[in-house]
C-alpha cells in the first residue's frame, strides 16, 4: 500500500494538471499570442494588397474619369443655300458648310481669324454634319442645331485641365480662344454630356473623336476565335491525358511540355504567330483571326492544366461506380466524370480567356497595333484590340489621349471583372456536391 502511495505521490503529471500549472498557462498564453500575430500578418498582407489595388484604381479613375464626358458645342447649320444633291449627299462641300456654320458662331470676328475659329471645334465637324444629314435627308434646305465635339484643347479647358491663370505661352490655348469659349458658354452653346463616342467610335487621330468600339469588336473577334480553338482542343487534350493516355515516357514528356508552355512568355507566342501564321501561311496582318489563333496557342496550356485538375478532383469512386454497373470507360467519363469536372473546366477556360483579353505583346507582334479608324467588319479585316488600343493611346502626345488611356484601362478592367464574375457565377451554379 505504501509503495503504491509513494508512487502516487510523484506521478507523472497528467495533461490536465500540466495545462493547469503556471508553466502550462504561460504556454497557452504564448500560443494565443502566436495565433493573434499570425492573424495580424494575414490581415496586414490583405490590407497591403487592397491598398495597392485601391491606389491603382484610384489613379486610373482620377485621371480617366474626365474621358467619360465630352465637351460639345451646339452649332447652327444653315443648309438653305447649300448645294446638296439628295441622290449623292456625300459629294456636297461639307467642309465649306462646316466652316460656315462655325464662323457663324462668332459673327464679330474678322475672316482673318478663321483658323482660330475652326480650332474651337473638332476637325471632324464636316463628317459629323454630313452623317447627320445622311441619316435624316429631311434636314436638307433647313436650319438646324447640331452638337459637335469641341476640339481637344477646348475640351481640356472646359474640364479644368488647363490653368487659365498660367502665362499664355505655357498653355495650349490662347487668351483669345479662352475668350471665345467663355462667349460660347455664356450663349449656352457648351454642354458636357456622357461621352458615348468613347464606346461607339473607332480610333481617330483626334482624341475628341476617338473611341474604343473598334478595339472592343477586335478583342471580341479575337477572343471568339481563341475560345473556339482553345476550348475544344484543350478539353479534349486534358480528357485524353487524364483519362485515357497510357502512363509512359511519352505522355510524361507531353505533360512536362504542356506545363512548361504555360510558363512561356506571351511575346514568344507572338513571335510564333508572326513566323507561322503571317510569314508561312501568309495570313493578313492585324487581323483578329490571327490574333485569336495566337492567343489560343497561349491559352491552351492554361485550359489543359485547369481541366486536368478538374478531372483529377472527381473522386475515383464515381468512376468505379459507373464501371461497376458495366459502363464502358468512355461512358464513365462522358456521363459521370465530365459533368462533375465541367465547372472547373469552364472556370479555367474563362480565366484563360481573361488572361488572353489583357495580353498585349503577342498582338503587337502580329500588327494589331495599327492605326485603324473603322471597326473591323470581319475576322480578316485589320483591327486593334483593347490592350493594343491602350498601348497606342498611351503613346499619343495629345492631352485628350491621357485621360482616354486611363478610361480605356478602366473599360478593360471592367470586362475582366465581368468575365471573372461569370466564372464565379458558373462555378457556383454548376458545382454539385458528391
Amino acid at each position: 500500500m505504501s509503495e503504491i502511495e509513494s508512487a502516487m505521490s510523484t506521478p507523472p503529471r497528467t495533461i490536465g494538471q500540466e495545462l493547469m500549472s503556471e508553466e502550462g498557462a504561460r504556454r497557452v498564453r504564448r500560443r494565443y499570442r502566436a495565433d493573434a500575430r499570425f492573424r495580424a500578418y494575414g490581415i496586414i498582407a490583405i490590407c497591403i494588397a487592397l491598398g495597392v489595388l485601391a491606389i491603382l484604381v484610384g489613379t486610373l479613375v482620377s485621371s480617366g474619369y474626365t474621358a467619360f464626358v465630352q465637351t460639345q458645342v451646339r452649332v447652327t447649320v444653315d443648309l438653305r443655300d447649300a448645294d446638296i444633291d439628295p441622290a449623292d449627299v456625300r459629294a456636297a462641300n461639307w467642309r465649306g458648310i462646316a466652316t460656315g456654320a462655325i464662323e457663324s458662331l462668332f459673327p464679330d470676328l474678322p475672316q482673318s481669324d478663321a483658323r482660330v475659329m475652326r480650332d474651337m471645334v473638332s476637325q471632324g465637324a464636316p463628317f459629323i454634319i454630313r452623317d447627320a444629314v445622311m441619316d435624316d435627308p429631311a434636314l436638307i434646305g433647313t436650319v438646324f442645331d447640331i452638337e459637335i465635339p469641341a476640339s481637344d484643347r477646348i475640351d481640356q479647358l472646359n474640364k479644368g485641365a488647363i490653368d487659365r491663370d498660367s502665362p499664355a505661352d505655357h498653355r495650349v490655348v490662347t487668351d483669345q480662344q479662352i475668350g471665345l469659349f467663355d462667349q460660347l458658354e455664356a450663349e449656352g452653346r457648351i454642354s458636357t454630356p456622357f461621352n458615348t463616342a468613347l464606346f461607339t467610335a473607332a480610333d481617330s487621330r483626334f482624341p475628341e473623336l476617338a473611341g474604343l468600339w473598334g478595339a472592343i469588336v477586335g478583342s471580341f473577334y479575337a477572343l471568339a476565335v481563341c475560345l473556339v480553338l482553345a476550348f475544344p482542343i484543350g478539353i479534349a487534350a486534358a480528357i485524353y491525358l487524364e483519362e485515357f493516355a497510357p502512363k509512359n515516357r511519352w505522355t510524361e514528356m507531353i505533360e512536362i511540355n504542356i506545363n512548361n508552355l504555360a510558363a512561356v512568355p506571351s511575346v514568344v507566342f507572338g513571335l510564333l504567330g508572326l513566323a507561322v501564321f503571317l510569314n508561312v501561311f501568309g495570313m493578313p496582318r492585324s487581323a483578329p483571326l490571327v490574333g485569336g489563333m495566337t492567343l489560343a496557342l497561349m491559352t491552351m496550356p492554361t485550359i489543359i492544366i485547369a481541366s486536368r485538375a478538374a478531372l483529377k478532383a472527381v473522386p475515383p469512386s464515381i468512376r468505379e461506380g459507373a464501371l461497376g454497373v458495366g459502363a464502358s470507360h468512355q461512358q464513365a467519363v462522358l456521363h459521370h466524370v465530365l459533368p462533375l469536372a465541367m465547372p472547373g473546366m469552364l472556370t479555367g477556360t474563362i480565366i484563360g480567356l481573361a488572361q488572353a483579353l489583357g495580353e498585349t505583346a503577342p498582338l503587337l507582334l502580329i500588327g494589331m497595333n495599327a492605326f485603324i479608324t473603322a471597326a473591323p467588319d470581319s475576322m480578316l479585316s485589320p483591327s486593334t484590340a483593347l490592350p493594343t488600343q491602350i498601348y497606342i493611346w498611351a503613346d499619343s502626345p495629345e492631352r485628350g489621349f491621357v485621360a482616354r488611356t486611363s478610361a480605356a484601362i478602366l473599360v478593360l478592367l471592367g470586362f475582366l471583372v465581368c468575365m471573372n464574375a461569370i466564372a464565379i457565377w458558373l462555378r457556383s451554379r454548376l458545382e454539385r456536391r458528391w
Partner: protein
Amino acid sequence: MNEATSHAGSVSVQHAHDVTGMPTKVHAREVTVHYGEKQALFGVSMDIPANSVTAFIGPSGCGKSTFLRCINRMNDTIDICSVGGRITIDEQDIYDPSLDVVQLRARVGMVFQKPNPFPKSIYDNIAYGPRIHGLVRSKSDLDGIVESSLKRAGLWKEVSDRLSEPATGMSGGQQQRLCIARAIAVSPEIILMDEPCSALDPISTAHIEELIDELRENFTIIIVTHNLQQAARVSQMTGFFHLGKLIEYADTGDVFQNPQHSMTEDYITGRFG
C-alpha cells in the same frame, strides 16, 4: 467432393463438402496478382457456388479486395496491376482477350466499401445501368425496373415519394442500399461486395444483411468483411486469406466451428489480425 490440393507454400482447401449443393459459378485457379513489383496474391484457387453467399475474411492487406476485384476485372483500371492464373464464370474464361470486359461487368455487379451514388437523382442512379445496356424499351419499363430494384433493396418505402431528389442527400445506409439497388437493376449474375457495411451503423447493417440473404435466391454473392459475426451470419462459404494466400476455404459452419488450419483458428478466435 472433398479434394484438397496443396500449392507452393500454401495449403488451400478448394472446396470442402459444399453445403450449398449448388453448381460452381466462379472457378478460380492459381490466381496471382502483382502490383508492379509487389506480389499481392499467391496462387489462389477456389470454386464459388452459385446462388449462395461466399465471404472473404482475413487481416487487413491480405488481398481480399484484390481477389474480389479480379472477378469483375476491376483491377484492369489500375495500370500497374497484372493478373495471372485463370478465372472462369460459368466455364467462360473472363481473361480471354475476346471477352468484352464491359459486358463482364454488367454480369458481375459491384458494391463498394464507401457508398458511391452518382451525384444525380435517386431515379437516375438506378436507371443508369439499364439505360446504357439498352435493357428497356419504354419509360414505363424503366419505371418498373427502378421500382422493383428499390423494393428488392428494401428502399422503396423510404424513397418512393422523392425519386427525383439527389441521391447524395440520403443517409449513408440508404446510399449503400441505393448502390445495391443500382447493382441489381442491371440483373447481374454475381454481386461483389467489398465491406459494404463498414461505414454503416448496426441498424443499417442489419438491413443490408437481411437484404443479402434475400438476394441470394437470385444472385451469387461474394462479400468481403472484417466483421466475423457478419460472415458467420450471412454466408454459406467462407474463405480465409492471409498475406495474399487463401489459407482455408470451406463452408462457413466448418470454418468457424472446426477450422482445419491453426492460422484460421487464431484469426477467428481473435488471437491475431
